[in-house]
């Protein structure tokens, strides 16, 4: 455990040293600022309209809820990028540079090194997610007084989605070059993404083939399914009936899918440990 923490500590240091954290913070702050200005503007317009015309209060709330969900959807993309990109180079880069040789010849197991790195990036990801999603929710509440139904559960599912991608990115790094790893993990994410949409449309149109395709891709890469669950728990109740949008979920992934996602992380992590333990460095 001590070894894991030492490696995690170094990994934080590295993320800081390589300005990863700084870049994420600056861009995150810029995003929140723009979102705050935009959301405020839309709210003001709505309020102004409300005085002059006949826009019903309910419709305005739905509109604002839509904007809030769009903000969270953007955060979801940022989190996906953070999950894939921050650890993409951590093993393959160290292997390429030979840095790893001075780590694995220390009296610590290779597994410890991998777990330490995983833990550090997971913490960075979790903090980033809570800050960004929390920021959006806070802005929405501060400006309009709107509270999305179940934000903590939603954020938890987004974290699970990020954890899946982070673990895949670390797994790829045990054998692939940085570039090949990036292409692979983002490719898998894209597959799950399009699969998720097909499932939604399939269920809307009653097309079983499309729905099955979506379920299979979700089993292969349970990321989009986690976003759908997150969106389902956070969206304002009225939005579910509006139309198909990335965050008005018609077909809700089952609890089984959640269990599968957790299991998936564990299995991928075990494979990564095995791959890393047995390879020549």
């Amino acid at each position, binding site marked *: 455990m001590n070894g894991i923490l030492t490696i995690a500590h*170094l990994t934080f240091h590295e993320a800081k*040293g390589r300005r990863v954290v700084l870049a994420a913070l600056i861009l995150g702050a810029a995003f929140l600022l723009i979102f705050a200005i935009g959301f405020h503007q839309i709210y003001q317009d709505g309020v102004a309209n409300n005085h002059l015309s006949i826009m019903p209060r309910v419709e305005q709330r739905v509109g604002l809820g839509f904007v809030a969900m769009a903000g969270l959807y953007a955060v979801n993309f940022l989190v996906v990028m953070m999950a894939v990109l921050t650890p993409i180079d951590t093993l393959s880069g160290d292997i390429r540079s*030979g*840095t790893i040789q001075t780590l694995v010849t220390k*009296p610590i197991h290779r597994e410890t090194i991998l777990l330490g790195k995983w833990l550090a990036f997971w913490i960075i990801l979790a903090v980033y997610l809570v800050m960004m999603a929390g920021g959006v929710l806070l802005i929405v509440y501060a400006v309009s007084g709107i509270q999305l139904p179940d934000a903590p559960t939603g954020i938890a599912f987004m974290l699970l989605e990020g954890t899946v991608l982070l673990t895949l990115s670390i797994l790829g790094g045990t054998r692939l070059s940085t570039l090949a790893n990036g292409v692979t993990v983002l490719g898998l994410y894209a597959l799950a993404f399009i699969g998720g949409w097909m499932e939604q449309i399939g269920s809307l149109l009653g097309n079983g083939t499309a729905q099955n395709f979506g379920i299979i891709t979700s089993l292969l890469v349970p990321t989009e399914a986690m976003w759908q669950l997150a969106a389902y728990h956070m969206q304002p109740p009225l939005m579910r009936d509006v139309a198909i949008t990335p965050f008005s979920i018609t077909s809700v992934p089952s609890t089984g899918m959640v269990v599968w996602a957790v299991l998936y992380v564990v299995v991928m992590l075990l494979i990564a440990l095995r791959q890393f333990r047995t390879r*020549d460095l």
Partner: protein
Amino acid sequence: MTELAIETSGLRKEYGTKIAVQDLTLTVHRSEVFGFLGPNGAGKTTSMKMLLGLVRPTAGQARVLGEPLGNVPARAGVGFLPEHFRFQDWLTGREFLRFHGRLFGVPAKTLTRRIEDLLGQVDLLDAGDRKLREYSKGMLQRIGLAQALINTPRLVFLDEPTSGLDPLGRLLVRDLIVRLRTEGTTVFLNSHLLSEVEVTCDRVAFVKRGSVVRQMSLAEQTGGMEVILRLGASDARLLQGLARFGRDVHSTPDGTAVGVSLQVEGEEKLPEIARWLVGQGTDIYSLSMGKKSLEALFLEVMGEDERPG
């Protein structure tokens, strides 16, 4: 506890169809400086990596500090300077050593003292708070060396430790190795550069295309010293006279003077030779002595068929 620091038999490594190390069978005693010598591509780095558990042997066995390969706790007593490396260059020299010390499990209090001590030894005390990315190649090599010694290892592996160093840096490394030997540390040294090794190694193994072709003790092999003279003139009578002090007397013209070399038993012969030459009325331009050049030996062992790697 066994007397051997390293013991291997038939270690072999194949990368696909490429045989990097064919048959590594050698022994390294405790507290000796062991030179593992051979041209580029001979398999020195791969051999070292197998001993360090970085690379899995295709066949064969080995024990390092009495433990089988891959024993994790045993690594607490082992230091390693890789051949090619890029260290965590966002750290300062001190942070870097502290981090590696922590990975070795060196207690915090001992570590602080050890870091300052080592920074002094590798002449980086004033650069200790600068980031590694600002270090020159030579400074990196030296901080790498300090890293390899941070845990006060019983056995240290150095892969081409003098590569990238200027003459002063090489001298520093050489002195450090001598110091390690006096402290009883076993040093396993990979090198294709022979001049520094000559003075530091107790024993050497020559490796050629993945196999150890010869292992020997340097002191025993050279079995004496070589005397090199530059004289005003020489003739058959003088050379015959010199033959009384040693063997293998050779002379070669050297500018206006004549160079003469011969093998003697020990350095006590040197003043005798000088006295005798003065008595003969011969002009002496220079008179020196050294061990038989390892380079000559290297070429001899590698044979004619070896081409530059």
